[in-house]
């Protein structure tokens, strides 16, 4: 290591060096010769030292290099944690974001990630909500060629972040160059990229920023696409679009339509892939000669036809043979030129209509078949086809609605695929078929066609179920999967009748196949959830029990079934013990999943806390709810239904504690989120509006309470069966509010109806019926039927006095009113 001479020699040389440095450079050579006359062996060394002194060396360069800044950046990262991720050091930075290598401990395993921290904070609540929604979509991409999304959120200072799989690899252009790949190998690698992009397009995620630095090849030769959909997730709202655009885009890697400020679509990605292919084949970008002038460059991308790749390759070879690809221009001339140029057409409608088409043509070229990009007829066909496949370019408002449902469907579908991943290529093939079907179905919801006739989500789903009804005769398993998926979508949208019908059919089909236990179990769990949401608890529990049994040893399916069973039992609250047992077991099973999913675990924990809440163990419930919220709220956001459910239970908890102001705050938050996600007409929103109204009543705010009860009741009547318990629940509160507002007659009508409903669900001596009768008695009192009221109150006394507060106190108040001093209104 130590290259310095020994001490004596050093001192001699150092003294000589000092002397030389004092001299004019021109005199040095002579002085060295003179000084070293007695030590000729030192002359060369002294000469070398003087040589080092004469020119700037590594010491100067350290100061100018990025090393110091890098080291300091690393300090900042090492000091930080975001969303539970420890930032190790910075691995990249750009105008939009910084990327850190990060790690976290996940169930005892240290997980590494590339954490992307956006430079710009998200100001409005709307932008945040949108970011969180988009982020959830990213989570569903599951292709080995796409860097996996792990986690994401918004840091304390408002900056959004995303944690993605960390890829140790080289950009694809460098990889091709350094490995000196042949034409054929380059095409193979490129086709992998096409496959990844096509996968994302099937999920309606457009990349928008495909460029060599976003396409890595890992050490084992695996292609990995980075930053999928991030541009979309982070795209600001429309008024800010130009600003975002200028930040995001350089003409190097942008399509003409992006430069024009138009929304990106799947064919934008086709163009960007065309650019990438051009560069991999020709060794340079198509508009390289304009790159020194941004203005000319942008104009060229928008207006000028690119050169043929073969011609550009000839240029590269002429300019620098060593850095050019090992390809002869003649190999590109002809079909490959045509393919690349077809992808690079200015008019999106004239390009390949999809990445698959581009990929197919490359495959055709490799196999020596004719390529489709040849011939004019194709252009026409492309245009025609494209008209129906522009959904991904969602921009028009009509399409947004459709895209929303689409997302729900795909999210569900993808979740299923994830759950099935372990066992069966058959299942995977089925899932793929279902996805293609969905894509096709939704592609008919073309925004341009929908203008004028407002397209409803229901209409799209209707069309889907109709097609399932007459199609797929030869593929019953695929049909069953589609019935299940569309049915689940109906369930998510609150149309329980259609949901039951479709999932019921899936169950029916799957019962025929002895080997379909797992699939059957999933459909049974879904059906159990539908029945539960319609308050058919006995049916729900029976279905869930069967689901548990059919799940066999499949841990994913078993946990889902146990969860369904636990929630069903919990809602029929006589069996809390059994519910607790099922949910505890579900928790255990969730934890044995090969890759434990903290989100599912937290959801099960939340359900478990709901039992504690029903048990009256308020402190335990609060702990469980808070723990689940800690995991879920930052990952999923307020508007996610599971988070909303937790907030709801928290509101109920405060209500139980008599803290009505807090409860009202939570309920309002719940309603805000639900209205945004489900729409104001959804029965769940009406149910929660009922709870809000109750709390407002408790606070003495009868006017608001009455209005909320009435609004909620109208929706409940429209969406739920006439004998639904939720209707009775609403009417009990509504009737009391009406009494306070002096409308005894209307109040009586509601409470009578509530009692009729409750009588169908509960035994005659159940406290809930008694509670409704107490309200009925109060109405009678106001209507001057004191004796009947008193008799009724005496009958229900035992049932209500046995209940926890505040029920007995309310009863005593009503009884006192009936027996004693009549209230002012009743004299």
């Amino acid at each position, binding site marked *: 290591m130590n290259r310095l001479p020994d001490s004596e020699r050093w001192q001699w040389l150092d003294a000589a060096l000092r002397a030389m440095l004092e001299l004019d450079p021109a005199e040095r050579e002579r002085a060295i010769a003179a000084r070293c006359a007695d030590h000729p062996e030192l002359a060369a060394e002294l000469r070398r030292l003087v040589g*080092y*002194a004469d020119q700037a060396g590594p010491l100067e360069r350290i100061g100018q290099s990025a090393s110091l800044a890098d080291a300091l950046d690393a300090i900042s990262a090492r000091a930080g944690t975001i969303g539970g991720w420890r930032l190790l050091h910075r691995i990249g930075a750009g105008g939009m974001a910084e990327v850190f290598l990060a790690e976290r401990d996940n169930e005892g395993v240290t997980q590494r990630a590339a954490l992307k921290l956006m430079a710009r904070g998200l100001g409005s609540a709307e932008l945040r909500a949108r970011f969180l929604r988009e982020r959830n979509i990213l989570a569903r991409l599951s292709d080995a060629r796409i860097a996996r999304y792990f986690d994401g959120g918004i840091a304390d200072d408002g900056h959004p972040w995303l944690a993605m799989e960390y890829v140790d690899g080289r950009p694809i252009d460098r990889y091709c160059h350094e490995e000196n790949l042949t034409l054929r190998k380059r095409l193979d690698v490129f086709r992998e990229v096409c496959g990844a992009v096509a996968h994302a397009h099937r999920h309606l995620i457009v990349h928008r920023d495909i460029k060599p630095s976003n396409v890595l090849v890992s050490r084992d030769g695996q292609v990995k696409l980075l930053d999928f959909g991030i541009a979309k997730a982070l795209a600001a709202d429309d008024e800010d679009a130009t600003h975002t655009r200028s930040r995001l885009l350089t003409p190097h890697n942008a399509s003409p339509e992006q430069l024009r400020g138009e929304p990106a679509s799947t064919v934008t990605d086709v163009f960007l892939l065309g650019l990438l292919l051009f560069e991999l084949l020709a060794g340079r970008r198509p508009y390289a000669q304009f790159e020194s002038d941004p203005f000319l460059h942008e104009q060229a991308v928008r207006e000028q036809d690119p050169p043929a790749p073969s011609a550009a390759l000839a240029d590269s070879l002429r300019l620098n043979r060593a850095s050019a690809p090992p390809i002869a221009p003649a190999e590109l001339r002809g079909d490959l030129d045509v393919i690349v140029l077809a992808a690079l057409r200015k008019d999106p409608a004239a390009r390949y209509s999809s990445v698959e088409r581009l990929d197919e043509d490359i495959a055709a070229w490799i196999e020596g078949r004719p390529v489709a990009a040849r011939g004019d007829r194709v252009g026409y066909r492309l245009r025609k086809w494209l008209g129906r496949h522009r959904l991904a370019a969602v921009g028009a408002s009509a399409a947004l609605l459709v895209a929303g449902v689409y997302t729900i469907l795909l999210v569900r579908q993808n979740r299923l695929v994830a759950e099935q991943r372990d066992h069966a290529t058959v299942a995977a093939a089925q899932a793929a078929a279902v996805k293609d079907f969905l894509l096709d179905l939704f592609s008919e919801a073309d925004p341009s066609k929908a203008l004028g006739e407002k397209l409803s989500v229901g209409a799209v789903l209707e069309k889907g179920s109709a097609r399932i009804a007459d199609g797929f005769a030869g593929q019953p398993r695929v049909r069953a999967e589609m019935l299940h998926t569309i049915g689940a979508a109906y369930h998510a949208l609150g149309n329980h009748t259609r949901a039951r019908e479709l999932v019921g059919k899936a169950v029916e089909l799957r019962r025929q196949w002895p080997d379909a236990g797992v699939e059957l179990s999933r459909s049974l769990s879904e059906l159990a959830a539908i029945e539960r949401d319609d308050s058919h608890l006995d049916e729900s529990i029976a279905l869930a029990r069967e689901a548990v049994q059919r799940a066999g040893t499949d841990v994913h399916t078993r946990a889902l079934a146990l969860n369904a069973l636990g929630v069903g039992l919990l809602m029929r609250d006589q069996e809390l013990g059994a519910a607790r047992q099922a949910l505890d077991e579900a928790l255990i099973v969730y934890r044995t999943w090969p890759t434990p999913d903290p989100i599912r675990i937290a959801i099960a924990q939340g359900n478990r806390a709901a039992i504690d809440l029903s048990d009256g163990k308020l402190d335990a419930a609060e702990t469980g709810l808070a723990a689940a919220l800690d995991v879920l709220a930052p990952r999923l956001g307020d508007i996610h239904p599971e988070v909303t459910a937790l907030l709801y239970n928290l509101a109920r908890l405060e209500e139980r504690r008599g803290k009505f102001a807090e409860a009202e705050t939570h309920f309002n938050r719940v309603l805000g989120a639900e209205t945004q996600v489900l729409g104001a007409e959804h029965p769940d929103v009406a149910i929660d509006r009922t709870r809000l109204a109750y709390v407002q009543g408790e606070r003495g705010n009868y006017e608001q309470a009455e209005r909320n009860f009435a609004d909620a009741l109208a929706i409940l009547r429209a969406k739920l069966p006439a004998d639904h318990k939720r209707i009775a629940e609403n009417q009990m509160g509504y009737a009391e509010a009406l009494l306070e507002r002096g409308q005894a007659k209307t109040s009586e009508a509601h409470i009578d109806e509530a009692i009729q409903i409750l009588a169908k669900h509960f035994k005659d001596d159940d406290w809930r019926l008694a509670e409704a009768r107490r309200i009925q008695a109060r109405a009678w009192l106001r209507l001057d039927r004191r004796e009947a009221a008193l008799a009724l109150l005496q009958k229900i006394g035992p049932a209500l006095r046995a209940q926890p507060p505040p029920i007995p106190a309310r009863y005593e108040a009503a009884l006192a009113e009936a027996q004693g001093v009549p209230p002012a209104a009743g004299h």
Partner: protein
Amino acid sequence: MGESTDPSVSQLIAACADDDESLLARVFPLVYTELKQVAHRALLRASGNATLSTTALVNEAYVKLAAHAKLAVNDRSHLFALCARAMRQIVVDHARRRQADKRGGQQPAMSLSGIEPDSADRPETIVAIDEALGALSERDPRLVRLIEYRVFGGLDTRQIAELLDLTPRSVQLEWLRARAWVGQALALNTGPDVAP
């Protein structure tokens, strides 16, 4: 936690005045930590994109540490040397980590003689320079301090001259010596005109 506590600061001042090596070794972590915190805060302020000026950082760390006492010129020189040393340590630590990250990969191990003049960004180079400075400090500790002032503390000739009580011209000559000996220690290959 982020603030320097008084006992360590008085130790620090004593160390600066004494030039006691073991005492210096003890207060060094304090300076190191302080500098890191200064850097961290600076980065937070810059919200990511700004390139950091090492000069500004070392100065800020110095000012923070010096704020606790009135320092004589000699103490200031020592304290600044400590800050620059801490900065060197941070850079080298980082380079070693990067080296460790790369290990096991395709990156071939580099022999020192293979270091080229334009490789200052490579962690291997930084680690090699650190080792060269280690060797050089046995022969000429003041020269190493001068190197640290300039490279890691970002000081200019005039400031260094003041701290080391030299004339600017001597500082320039010393810098040429520094180039020569570091070049020698790294066995730099500087080109055909110097080849023996």
